[in-house]
């Protein structure tokens, strides 16, 4: 048995326990040390993943291939950015407890398992480990009503989705007789096995996973949780778990159910169209920037799902590039949002950004770059994500999806450039408090990546291409 395949996950879990111990034993201010140790653990594990070899282990439960490597590195980068973003906030919001980075670490372990899961059992385990840790994170500011509410809502609805998923998985198992992805694919390649019961199970699985990526019509939790959760947690929720959930959805649809493309393609197309429409239309009315980001992420998931609906290598490559650009834009945007603070109080209204270009030009430029990028304006990275997504849609002849996609991106552009309007055109308000270095670092990293992605896109695209090749089709 090739147990070393999961070594990065094992190392990360053990370092999580070690950090927990250090946190308990340390007399004072263990938060910063634990956060730094978590970042260090992430870096070490990233190196281990990059250097690790591919293969399948644990009787098919766990697979390491170029796809899982791509996703894991992206998840770890996103998680690292998430930890860095929480450094300063926690100090202000009385959340300075060492459990915080540890929870993030265990959520990340869950995501890494999700990326490698090639069995219905390991899929569910990874998903739940990630979910349980994020439920707690959402409610972490426990003295705050909104945060507690967000955590509870997230937990109740998330459990419901997990139930749906589990029910779907049991149906799939019942009608096919196996839990392993490879064997499922084998069984389903014979059209005679496409029984109605299996299709019902498949729909339940899609519903459960659609909840995790917050695609319409399973998006209801997103705006409330995004708004209520402490902002660094929102930043974390918006990046790393999204990547892992999309990866899981992609792998499940492409590997075991790849032969049932005709059956689930319509569902994904519908979910994608609804997400893009709701994401662009509902965001227009928002006043709260965190809520706006929730709708924006719903829209982005709609675009990413276009690549899945395309049902091709090119489509999967598009999804991966899209998620890559999405992580950097989103983390950067949240770094900017976390910088919105006056006299120690966090601000969340879009109108609070008025005239930011006068009071803090650096932050304003970064914010504008992220907004243009999210709107898909070249040369920013967001354009390239959309470019490769729409390429696959055109190749697969999904014209309805492509046309709706580009038109909703214009509607979406309206609310993104309205934020830029508030920042640049409106009269200035009082300046924000001085920005801590941690936020500047994340905002700068995101802005640099987003701006200069177009200069050397080839290595990233090649990595995504190699990752997509690891899956079926």
């Amino acid at each position, binding site marked *: 048995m090739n147990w070393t395949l999961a070594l990065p996950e094992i190392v990360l879990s053990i370092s999580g326990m070690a950090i927990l111990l250090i946190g308990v034993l340390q007399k004072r201010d263990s938060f910063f040390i634990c956060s730094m140790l978590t970042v260090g653990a992430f870096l070490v594990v990233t190196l281990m993943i990059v250097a690790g070899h591919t293969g399948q282990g644990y009787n098919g439960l766990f697979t390491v291939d170029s796809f899982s490597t791509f996703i894991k590195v992206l998840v770890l980068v996103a998680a690292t950015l998430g930890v860095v973003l929480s450094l300063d906030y926690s100090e202000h919001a009385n959340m300075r407890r060492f459990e915080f980075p540890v929870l993030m670490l265990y959520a990340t372990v869950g995501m890494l398992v999700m990326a490698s899961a090639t069995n219905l059992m390991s899929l569910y385990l990874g998903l739940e480990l990630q979910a349980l840790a994020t439920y707690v994170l959402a409610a972490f500011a426990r003295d705050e009503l909104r945060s507690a509410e967000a955590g509870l809502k997230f937990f109740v609805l998330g459990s419901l989705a997990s139930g749906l998923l589990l029910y779907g998985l049991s149906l799939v198992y019942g009608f096919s007789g196996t839990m392993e992805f490879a064997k499922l694919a084998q069984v389903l390649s014979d059209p005679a096995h496409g029984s109605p019961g299996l299709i019902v199970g498949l729909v339940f699985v899609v519903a459960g996973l659609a909840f995790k990526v917050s695609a319409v019509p399973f998006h209801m939790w997103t705006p409330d949780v995004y708004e209520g959760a402490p902002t660094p947690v929102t930043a974390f929720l918006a990046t790393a778990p999204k990547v892992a959930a999309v990866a899981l959805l992609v792998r499940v649809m492409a590997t075991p159910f790849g032969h049932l493309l005709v059956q689930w393609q319509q569902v994904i197309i519908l979910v994608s169209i609804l997400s893009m429409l709701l994401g662009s239309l509902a965001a227009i009315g928002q006043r709260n920037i965190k809520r706006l980001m929730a709708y924006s992420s719903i829209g982005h998931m709609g675009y990413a799902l276009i690549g899945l609906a395309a049902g091709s290598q090119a489509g999967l490559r598009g999804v991966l590039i899209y998620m890559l650009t999405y992580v950097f834009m989103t983390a950067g945007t949240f770094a900017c949002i976390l910088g919105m603070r006056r006299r120690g109080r966090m601000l969340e209204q879009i109108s609070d950004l008025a005239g930011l270009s006068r009071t803090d030009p650096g932050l304003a430029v970064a914010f504008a770059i992220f907004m243009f990028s999210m709107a898909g*304006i070249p040369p920013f990275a967001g*354009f390239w994500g959309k470019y490769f997504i*729409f390429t696959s849609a055109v190749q697969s002849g999904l014209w309805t999806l492509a046309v709706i996609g580009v038109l909703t991106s214009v509607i979406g552009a309206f609310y993104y*450039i309205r934020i830029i309007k508030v920042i640049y055109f409106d009269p200035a308000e009082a300046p924000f408090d001085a920005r801590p270095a941690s936020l500047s670092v994340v905002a700068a990293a995101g802005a640099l990546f987003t701006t200069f992605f177009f200069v050397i896109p080839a290595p990233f695209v090649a990595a995504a291409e190699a990752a997509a090749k690891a899956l079926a089709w």
Partner: protein
Amino acid sequence: MNAAGFPLLSLLTWLPLVGAAVILSVRGDEAAVAANARWTALWTSLIVFALSLLLWVRFDQSDPAFQFVETVSWLPQWGITYKLGVDGISVLFVLLSTALTPICIVASWESITVRVREFMLAFLLLETMMVGMFCALDFVVFYMFFEGVLIPMYFIIGVWGGPRRVYAAIKFFLYTLAGSVLMLLALLLMWYVAGTTDIPTLLRTPFPVAMQTWLFLAFLASFAVKVPMWPVHTWLPDAHVEAPTAGSVILAGVLLKMGAYGFLRFSLPMLPNASASLAPLIFALSVMAVVYTSYVALAQQDMKKLIAYSSVAHMGVVTIGIFTFNIQGISGALFQMLSHGIVSAALFLCVGVIYDRIHTREIARYGGLADRMPAYAFVFMLFTLASVGLPGTSGFIGEFLVLVGAFKVNFWLALLGSLGMILGAAYMLYLYRRVIFGVITRADLRDILDLSPREVAVFAPLVVLTLWMGIYPSSFSGFWDASVSAMVEHHRAALEAAVKLAGVLPQ
């Protein structure tokens, strides 16, 4: 290969960003930063202009192919390369962009007083985008610059514009974006068929006739907004009225040419069959633009709005010329684009001159300026007449050639097209009479000052160009003669091939 011996076009494209970086690095108090930004921007744009004159000198007029070509590997597996080059159609627009930018910077020397540094940054960024767009020989590169123009222009209108600037900026952005994204889908389909986005290769790729129609409509959505054609022109008057003078100048001078350039670069040569079958639609929209917007222009109270509507009418003449598919028509369209680029830019500068003094653009607020501002009255008259199309000015050549081309296609088309010219004379002369002639009634007009040396320096090159183009047009049309004949020939051959194919196939 590259006639300059070094990557001239890349240098022209990216040098403004170097200037922008220098401006960004300036520290100090606000006045020092502003002065520094102005001078850096001016020098950068002047150096770029001087370099671009190499194109004028070294360009081989007898060669219809792309020249000064440079290629850098970018995304080779997907057939996307960073490739720049110019042919007879694009070379003069590169020069137009590099020439108008320093003029705009000088024109906004005193009128832009707030956030000078950001203004100059936006303008240099805009220059990069414009030059890059006209040089691009890869569709993805083209698209990047084509859309990238929106970013600096959005800020120029929105930050330094008039009272309704926010509305105008957002309208401008969304209208243009909505058109462009459909072009993106067309681009992707073309890539899917041809396996590359290299423009010279795409020019030789025959696309299926049924697909051409869809591609053409997608391109039309994008370019029609940019031209702008009736009925999607409504963003233009708003953008022009609210934009600062320099913004209006560059918008009318260069950005409006992007749509017509797109037709010439993509629609016409790549989609010959669809262009031929959908030409009546273009003619209908163009004639509508020429006649209807001319009438609208007659009724305007605001000078900038009037000139904006006249731009729509003039660009209608351009689109008529492009879709005549004969040498005269296309040549005339190119000439009209170039001439309009200079004349309308100059007219917006003329409005800017008196706006800087009196701070209103309302026509009724003026009158009798000839008395106090003789030099200004002369300059304004010259450009008014050039806009009307007086022989001896640049406006005449373009309109005349387009009408000759249109006559070859359809008598009524030419007749309705010339109606625009008569109406054009009406609204422009009416404007001129109300602003310049008459008796001064307002007190503040009595001590209005004539053109300052700075303003003379702004207008002088434009005056020279307008007369040069009108008196000796072949020093300009010589650049594109070879390219246009090759294009017309290619178009005819493609149509004939289609006819032959139709004869062979069973009906």
